[in-house]
């Protein structure tokens, strides 16, 4: 009896422990695992993403709170959305509704990334990225921008109406339990969209384009290699031939004013720049090990960073003198990390004051690249330096203070608690000087002055562009553009073309060296910005074309510092565009598309003949049979990085090994710690724009340059000897990767592209596929396994008034939807889709129509 009673108690204990544990475990999130009972619930869980109306829209009437009148939205078979609204406000609201309907999780993810709130939903893995975001203070910038927008202004209407549209979807999907499945898997619901969130998204894009660590990398390298050597290897202007689009003469007008930093503006606002006599506050230390700026930068998700400065984007325009139609042509293809869903969402809008089509970024209602009825534009990253660092003067007797302009001043401190999924809130404080937040690199503190933190009127500029009908309007729209510096390429209905590298170009004191961390004591502060009239720009040039591929925009005589050879892309793509357009005549939109597909390698064109000469007969070099076969492939090669080309494989591997054979001995000799964990950013990278240009220049013009010698072994070498070593190493590496049969070394077997998911879930990505191109070709593909390249290709033909465009991905973020990947095949084969007008779309086959009705009307 006693035993039986004890058994019952044991059973109860067991049932509570195991059964209770199971019920608790299934209904609560544990670490990264969501509450499974909710996430996989058959009616309200992830399965709602499989419902037909979540996969593709169907024709229906929708009641949308906030709509003033009926709005029509037509979806083409490929998902391109066409919005026709009777009021401007309704158009912005409808854009918010449509973008959120198809991309809500993406919008929330990017918003969280910008605000430093990824850890809250992802967990501790995102903590370092969040800390970086808190240091940059994008939320603070967005709030300041919002506060500066006047009541009743058009921008305010745009942002508010857009937010209302997004929130209509959030409310609707919460109520119907149809939020995108990633919310359910991560176990959270999105908060309401605020107008400030759109401004935050703008900040995320600015960060993507203009935040980098090249300056402090230079310091780390300088400590090992020596400052002089770093100056030689990473010059401000490369000795190699450049391809500027804005040629002399250059003017020099009085500087325009700008703040020393964003921090200065905020300090003034908060009146917190106190005298040193004030007692410094006691602040909690950051928990755990402090990560360096570079490590935090590496932790930022790929979708929010441009990891390769050498392969950014292409954009060009051609005037009627060179086209078959006699009217202008414009082409653009921004190169970014390719993701699923894509960073782009294609839209066309007809509203009383706005008629446009193009590529928008979900979270921002305005197209960044596109056209209205009169003008068209595209953009490439200006790549000018917009991230600066200061070495602050501090000492132990002045804790939490820094010396600036003759006085000790208190650092400001922002407490930035970071909620972490499955853990405690991380206490994090951001200390700032007048120049910006204090960061750490290789154990040294610096203040970071990133111009993207300065509040601007970027949305207003984009809005003005939408209304522009000539170059003067277009140019004036960018009068106050800040960061990032962008090369805006322009072509219009009248046949005018132009290129304007809009942005904030800070100017420093005469003795300042902005390419290095500068003195924080005041002498090296920003003293103004390059006047708008002097920034790089060109309008209807004599050559009848304009072009940009992130190259240095101006020649050697430009009277201002704008960046180094490390910040701009090497000129290979720019040179190729220029060559093709210079030689081109009777050009058509098809020619523009062919150019976007171009995989001709100008670097290889310059170097391969020298390689063949140094290894060929008469050189006295003895090659193995396999090396000889590989060399023959190179001889017969047309310099095109095509998937079926063996020569392309040999070249690509040769170049990689040539860079290594030349520079790695120097890195090793001077103990650059590139092999250590967290220091990968110091490695010799085959696409490093400075080093690539150095090597190409020396090979062509200084084959006996001292850098060809091996400082480790003391062997004196010239270019030909290093080329031989590199070639042999390349053949070895190709044998390892592609086998011993040279005829099996087709580039496409070794060089692949994948399109990873934005959520970094491998199963949601697009699998590897053979790809052509490399970092020097117009159709860019950087690295053997690449996920970086053209994210949107557009061509505008003002002869027909028609445009075409394509991006790798699809309009929907739902991985079960046919619109998740449906554009990839067309993109891969460089087949652009026609960008239809509303009327054309309405008449096309298989369209879906949404009638978005005001609440009262819909309720009837």
């Amino acid at each position: 009896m006693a035993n039986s009673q004890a058994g019952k108690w044991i059973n109860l204990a067991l049932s509570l422990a195991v059964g209770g544990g199971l019920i608790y475990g299934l209904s609560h999130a544990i670490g990264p695992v969501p509450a499974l009972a909710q996430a996989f619930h058959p009616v309200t869980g992830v399965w709602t993403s499989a419902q037909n109306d979540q996969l593709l829209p169907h024709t229906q009437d929708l009641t949308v709170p906030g709509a003033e009148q009926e709005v029509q939205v037509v979806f083409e078979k490929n998902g391109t959305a066409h919005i026709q609204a009777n009021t401007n406000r309704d158009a912005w609201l409808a854009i918010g509704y449509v973008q959120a309907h198809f991309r809500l999780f993406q919008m929330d993810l990017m918003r969280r990334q910008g605000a430093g709130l990824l850890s809250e939903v992802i967990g501790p893995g995102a903590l370092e990225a969040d800390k970086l975001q808190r240091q940059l203070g994008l939320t603070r910038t967005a709030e300041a921008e919002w506060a500066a927008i006047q009541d009743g202004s058009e921008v305010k209407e745009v942002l508010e109406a857009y937010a209302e549209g997004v929130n209509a979807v959030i409310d609707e999907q919460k109520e119907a339990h149809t939020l995108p499945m990633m919310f359910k898997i991560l176990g959270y619901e999105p908060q309401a969209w605020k107008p400030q969130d759109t401004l935050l998204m703008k900040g995320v894009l600015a960060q993507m384009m203009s935040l980098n660590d090249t300056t402090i990398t230079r310091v780390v390298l300088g400590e090992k290699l020596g400052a002089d050597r770093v100056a030689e290897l990473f010059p401000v202007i490369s000795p190699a031939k450049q391809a500027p689009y804005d040629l002399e003469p250059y003017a020099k007008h009085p500087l325009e004013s700008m703040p020393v930093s964003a921090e200065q503006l905020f300090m003034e606002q908060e009146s917190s720049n106190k005298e040193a006599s004030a007692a410094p506050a006691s602040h909690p230390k950051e928990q755990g090990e402090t990560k360096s700026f570079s490590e935090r930068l590496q932790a930022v998700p790929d979708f929010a960073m441009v990891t390769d400065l050498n392969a950014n984007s292409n954009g060009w325009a051609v005037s009627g003198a060179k086209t078959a139609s006699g009217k202008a042509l414009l082409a653009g293809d921004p190169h970014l990390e390719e993701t699923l869903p894509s960073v782009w969402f294609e839209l066309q809008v007809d509203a009383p004051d706005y008629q446009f089509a193009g590529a928008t970024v979900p979270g921002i209602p305005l197209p960044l690249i596109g056209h209205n009825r009169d003008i068209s534009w595209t953009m490439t990253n200006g790549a000018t330096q917009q991230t600066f660092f200061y070495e602050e003067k501090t000492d132990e007797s002045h804790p939490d203070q820094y010396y600036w302009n003759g006085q000790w001043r208190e650092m400001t401190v922002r407490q930035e608690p970071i909620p972490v999924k499955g853990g405690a809130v991380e206490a994090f404080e951001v200390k700032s000087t007048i120049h910006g937040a204090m960061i750490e690199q290789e154990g040294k503190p610096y203040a970071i002055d990133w111009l993207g933190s300065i509040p601007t009127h970027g949305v207003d500029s984009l809005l003005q562009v939408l209304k522009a009908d000539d170059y003067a309007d277009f140019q004036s729209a960018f009068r106050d553009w800040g960061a990032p510096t962008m090369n805006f390429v322009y072509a219009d209905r009248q046949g005018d073309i132009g290129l304007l590298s809009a942005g904030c170009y800070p100017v420093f004191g005469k003795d300042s060296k902005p390419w290095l961390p500068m003195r924080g004591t005041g002498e090296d502060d920003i003293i103004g910005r390059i006047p708008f009239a002097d920034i790089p720009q060109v309008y209807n040039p004599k050559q009848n074309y304009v072009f940009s591929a992130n190259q240095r925009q101006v020649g050697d005589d430009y009277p201002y510092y704008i960046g180094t050879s490390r910040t701009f892309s090497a000129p290979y793509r720019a040179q190729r565009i220029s060559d093709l357009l210079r030689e081109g005549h009777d050009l058509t939109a098809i020619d523009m598309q062919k150019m976007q597909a171009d995989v001709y390698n100008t670097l290889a064109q310059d170097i391969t003949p020298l390689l063949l000469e140094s290894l060929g007969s008469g050189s006295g070099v003895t090659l193995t049979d396999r090396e000889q076969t590989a060399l023959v492939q190179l001889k017969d090669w047309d310099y095109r990085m095509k998937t079926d080309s063996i020569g392309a494989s040999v070249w690509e591997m040769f170049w990689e090994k040539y860079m290594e054979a030349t520079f790695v001995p120097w890195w090793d000799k001077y103990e650059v710690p590139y092999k250590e964990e967290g220091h990968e950013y110091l490695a010799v990278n085959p696409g490093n724009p400075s080093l690539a240009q150095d090597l190409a220049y020396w090979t062509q013009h200084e084959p006996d340059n001292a850098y060809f010698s091996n400082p480790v072994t003391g062997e004196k070498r010239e270019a030909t000897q290093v080329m031989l070593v590199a070639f042999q190493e390349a053949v070895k590496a190709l044998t390892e990767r592609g086998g011993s049969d040279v005829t099996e070394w087709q580039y496409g077997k070794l060089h692949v592209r994948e399109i990873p998911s934005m959520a970094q879930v491998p199963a949601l990505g697009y699998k590897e596929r053979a790809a052509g191109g490399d970092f020097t070709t117009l159709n860019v593909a950087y690295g053997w396994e690449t996920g970086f390249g053209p994210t949107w290709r557009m061509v505008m033909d003002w002869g027909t008034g028609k445009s075409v465009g394509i991006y790798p991905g699809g309009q929907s973020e739902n991985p079960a939807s046919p619109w998740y990947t449906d554009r990839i095949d067309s993109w891969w084969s460089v087949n652009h889709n026609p960008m239809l007008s509303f009327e054309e779309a309405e008449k096309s086959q298989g369209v879906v129509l949404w009638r978005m009705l005001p609440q009262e009307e819909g309720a009837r």
Partner: protein
Amino acid sequence: MRSLLAVVIATALMFGANEWGFWPATPLVGALLVVVTPTTRRAVGLALLSGVIGWGLPLLLMTGDAEIVRLAEVLGGILGIGGQVGTIIALALPSLIGGLLGLSAAWIAGAVKGVVVRPSVQSATEFGRTTLHR
């Protein structure tokens, strides 16, 4: 017959509550089965069965206007199990969760009942029910 009726009613309750997204109904109904079923062991089995059906049926019914299998393939991939196995596991997950919720609650309720209800009463009740069923 009583058991079948209990399963039908329990499944209907779980299914109905699931339509409203009210997942706690499953453990509640599972616990309730202990009260209305003669033996705890049987109640646990019925709760498991009701949970499996109550959670699997909505998914099955959804296949008419949803690409459930396509989504299951995606989910299998997210779970790190590719191919057909991943798809099957993803499809089975709701039923598994429903079954475990029902089973766990019934087990706890039965264990509580075992401790709380006096042995003589419990034996008599179970004896009586057994006799009656014969």
